């Protein structure tokens, strides 16, 4: 008797399994058709780095070398010289080795003026690693192409159609990350 029961249970289990599997056939797949449709990433997702300029085209970066010091992978190389007229420094060289960068955004956190920012350009695959050795022109180019970027200091910023830069509306701002970062800054100071 117990053998028959076992057989019956096995048959029932297989039947239930097959019915479940068949129901799945009619369900909508969540596929997002990547190369034809670009996915909408959240604004804080760290896919690449860029160097933002001011609206008038002048350099936002004050060449304080904070990002170079903060970088755990040591992929930022900055050379600077003193500004002959006025104060501050001017950039000689600003290279980020995007090949070895691990996209941790420590540099973005360290930057006092939010010049270096994270953008969502993930389509960086290449046939030749040299295209990933980013110099300052490429970093500016990346920032100019980006519609929105993120830095912990200013949050998400948008580039409007007429070229101005403005802070994104609050509903686009990432609440969670800003809150996490706030106490850390207080502890530091």
């Amino acid at each position, binding site marked *: 008797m117990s053998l028959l029961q076992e057989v019956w249970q096995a048959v029932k289990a297989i039947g239930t399994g097959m019915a479940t599997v068949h129901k799945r056939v009619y369900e909508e797949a969540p596929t997002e058709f990547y190369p034809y449709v670009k996915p909408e990433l959240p604004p804080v997702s760290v896919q690449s780095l860029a160097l933002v300029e001011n609206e008038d085209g002048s350099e936002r970066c004050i060449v304080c070398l904070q990002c170079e010091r903060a970088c755990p992978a040591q992929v930022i190389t900055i050379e600077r010289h003193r500004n002959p007229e006025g104060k501050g420094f001017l950039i000689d060289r600003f290279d980020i080795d995007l090949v070895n960068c691990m996209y941790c955004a420590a540099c973005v956190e360290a930057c006092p003026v939010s010049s270096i920012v994270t953008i969502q*350009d993930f389509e960086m695959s290449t046939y030749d690693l040299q295209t990933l050795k980013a110099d300052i022109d490429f970093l500016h180019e990346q920032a100019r192409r980006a519609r929105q970027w993120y830095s912990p200091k200013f949050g998400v910023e948008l580039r409007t159609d007429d070229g101005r830069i403005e802070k994104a509306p609050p509903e686009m701002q990432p609440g969670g990350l800003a809150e996490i970062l706030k106490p850390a800054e207080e502890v530091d100071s």
Partner: protein
Amino acid sequence: MRPIPIPEDRHFRPRLIGYDPQKSRPWLERTVYAAYVFVFWLIVIATYAGVPALFGALGWDGGWGFVLMRVLQVVLLFLLSAVIALLLILVLRKYLGKVQERFGPMHYGPAGGIQTVFDALKLLAKEDFVPAAADALTFRLAPAVTFVASFAMFAVIPFASGWVLADTNVGLIYLIAVSTLSAYGVLLGGVSSGNKWALIGALRAGAQMVSYEIPLALVFLTVAVWSGTLRLGGIVDAQLGLWNFLPLALPFVLYVIASLAELKHIPFDFPEAESELIAGYNVEYSGMSFAFFFLAEFVELFLLPALIVVFFFGGWHGPLFGIEPGSLAAGALESLYFTLKTAVWVWIFLWIRATLPRYRDDQLMEFAWKAMIPLALFGLVLAAYMRLIWR
């Protein structure tokens, strides 16, 4: 190699080629499957009606003309098995995709329809590799043996009344003999590879296929006892009133299970258990040799369901709408019924494949020897008694 020009903005974008439905289009998919089945049907008609009619019209149906006709039919059947493999691999991938809530191949060809053609072309142009540790002759021979053993089953499969290559009166015996041969191919391939995974896979395949041959053969005998003939056409004819799956319910279930094992199909895919044995007996095969193993597997995935239809589901029987039996139109209609019934069974096999996990190896053998064979014997005796009483 020509240098790759680096674009101005240093971004390489993939080309947006391929069909771009952005959503599944079930009607298009079904059209593609229907087109494959239509090609299949046309080849069947050409093989079993077209070629004999042509040779009859030319007056070449004796002596060497007859041999030539048979050769032509076999070539057409080879084409048929290629169509079967292309269709079944496509259906398998798309069906497994559906079950996993994704789309299978869908961008190359309408609804991914020519994906498997590309796969076949690629395998054709890929390096065919013989490892140094392998026994070269046996290694080369094994895929051919496997494929020929599966392909030879076509000889006795009746697609419609009279549409069969060799309507011998020992059809069942021939089937038992030939289907056992395909175990040899797998065994030889695994043992000659000089690879431990292949060896384990081949030994498992040998043990499994030999064990499940026995219930399979016993079920064949049961069907023969019940129908009173060893001829496959005769078995189909005997089912005119009642399809065999009702009186022979127990042998029918046993046959389905044993043919799953014979196919090396989930839940009995021990010979190529991917999580344990990498790829099992075909681990060292690449290019066209591998393609022949694949081809053999999918031809069997057509042939064993086809045998289910022949033995238990009335073969080609179906409503003829007043068409005179024996004519070309009737033959075409009957072969269509046969194809559709087989398609349903192939789908059930794929469904089982999508659902069940793999057994444990010792459970498999235990099941064969302690459950299947006694039950098959019991079914045989029962069928004999029923035959004595009712006919």
